[in-house]
């Protein structure tokens, strides 16, 4: 079983409920910076849940929220940005 | 007191109104009443028959199988004559029905209701109104006479009945209908003895 929460080191935080995730890929392809990917592990339902992964080549997470809005399982439970 | 009545005619003759008025008159006299209209998809020209039962007691069945009084407004409605109780009253609109005397065990009163109503021209709501439409009220007057209603308050009571049913634009027809009732009752009184009901 996996529990989900990953954050960028600097500008934003994305909280993921990996048990709700069905590994559909929508947030992965919607993220403008490709900062999400499906993990190699499994959740209790047998899906590869999404995880935050900063590749460093397209830019940091800006807390744009697209992953939050497209997720059909509202598994992206929270998107926060660094306090100014 | 108990009376079972069938009123029959064709759509447009005011058969349902006549039966309604008759029933309501008796309701106002403190009796139980039941009125059953015939009904169907047609509103004009079809065969119309209704039952009226009036009684001082609770009414068991509103269905009239053997009437004490049969009111016939047109010739086809003579078909109901065999139902009339021996000794009962047949009131016939003789303006339309010509061969009413088919049974000798009932009292037959022939009332030229259309002609009587047509003669009430002066009581029409406007000049030139064809007052023959009040033939049903003529028959109502005849029916009240035939059921031996105490006549002393009759005009007032009948007026109350009309006030109940003829509202709005129709109030203009109340005087005509009142005169028609009186004319019908008077005609029966002149015509002589009716069978006891």
């Amino acid at each position, binding site marked *: 079983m996996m529990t989900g929460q990953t954050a960028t080191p600097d500008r934003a935080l994305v909280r993921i409920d990996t048990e709700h995730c069905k590994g559909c890929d929508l947030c992965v392809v919607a993220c403008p910076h490709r900062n999400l990917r499906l993990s190699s592990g499994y959740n209790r339902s047998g899906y590869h849940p999404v995880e935050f992964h900063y590749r460093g080549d397209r830019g940091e997470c800006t807390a744009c929220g697209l992953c939050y809005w497209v997720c059909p399982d509202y598994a992206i439970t929270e998107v926060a940005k660094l306090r100014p | 007191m108990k009376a079972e009545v069938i009123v029959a005619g064709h759509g447009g003759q005011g058969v349902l109104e006549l039966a309604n008025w008759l029933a309501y008159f008796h309701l106002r006299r*403190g009796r139980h009443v039941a009125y*059953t*209209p015939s*009904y169907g998809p047609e509103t004009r020209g079809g065969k119309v028959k209704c039952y009226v039962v009036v009684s001082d007691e609770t009414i*068991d069945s*509103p269905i009239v199988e053997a009437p004490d009084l049969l009111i016939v407004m047109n010739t086809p409605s003579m078909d109901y004559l065999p139902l009339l109780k021996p000794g009962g009253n047949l009131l016939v609109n003789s303006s339309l029905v010509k061969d009413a005397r088919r049974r000798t065990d009932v009292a037959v009163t022939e009332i030229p209701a259309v002609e009587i109503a047509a003669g009430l021209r002066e009581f029409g709501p406007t000049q030139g109104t064809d007052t023959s439409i009040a033939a049903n009220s003529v028959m109502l007057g005849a029916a009240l006479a035939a059921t031996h209603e105490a006549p002393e308050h009759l005009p007032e009571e009948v007026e109350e009945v009309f006030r109940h049913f003829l509202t709005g634009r129709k109030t203009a027809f109340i005087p005509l209908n009142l005169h028609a009732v009186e004319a019908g009752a008077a005609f029966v009184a002149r015509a002589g003895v009716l069978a006891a009901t």
Partner: protein
Amino acid sequence: MSDDREFLKGNEALAYGALHAGLNAFYGYPITPSSEIPETLATEFGQGNFPEFRSFLQAASELEAINMVNGSAATGAKTMTATSGPGFSLKQEGISYAAGIGLPILVVNVNRAGPGLGNLGPEQSDYFQATRGGGHGGYRAIVLAPDSVQEMAAFPSLGFSLAFRYRTPVVILADAFLGQLKEDLVFPQVSTSSFDTSWAATGARGDQRHVLASLHLELDDQSLATHKLHAKYAEIARQEQRYEELESDGAQVVIVAYGICARLARRAVRSLRARSVPVGLFRPITLSPFPNQGIEKLIGQGVRNFLVVELNMGQMVQDVRLAVNGRAQVSSLGQVGGLIPGTEELVRAAEAMVG
């Protein structure tokens, strides 16, 4: 005799009876011989004489009407619809949902003749459909059978109180004769106490939610729900059987009839009793639950012959046979097509059964 009496058609009396009972909402689709019910209500709607009457609509179909009924009932409103056979068939979908969900609704069926389009005359051929739960899923409705214009006026109030007490559909099964019959009546005094509507869907409060549904995807859940529903029906059967007797003391033969047939039977019974023929009348007022308790009592009194008179080819006779359970002879006398049996026919049939 009190003279605040009215003179109304059965359909009109039922409409006013519903208004006096605090009707909040009505949805229907016109069909003869029940149309005076929506017509009467439309006349009163918005006129201020019945301020609780908040919603009236002629729907696009019977299906739309019954689902509007369910919607208003889901908010706890006293809601009614009225129809006749063909429309009652269409309404079965919504009645099944109301039974499954637990919605208190009042459905009036002014029974006309025949399967299909049939004709406009009186019949009681929707008896099975009404008493067996005419839709899918094995539910029952409470079915009330008036036999006079006075009862047409009184039963909406009784219907609402039963519907809300048990959160179940209640059917008033009249017939075309009663719908069109005009009699003198007095509007009964109706208690204005309001019903428990804490279950209604009127918005969630904190953790308190109202989800009104009949869907139970888990087999165990559905089983449990159905058992609960039928425990309710058993309770209704214990508490709510209603019937009337006439001249049943010392009767050898008892005519069983409801609706307009009960009126015919009254006349037949009085005519027989006038000749000292021991015949009585048993009139079920609740067709569902069927008043087995009353039949049981008559069996206990020694009645061994029942004559069931109906405007159909023999439907309630099955319930009488079930109640009698082999302990008495049960005969059936039916008339259909909008025709009504004559008093003589009843008299002869009953007299033939007297030993």
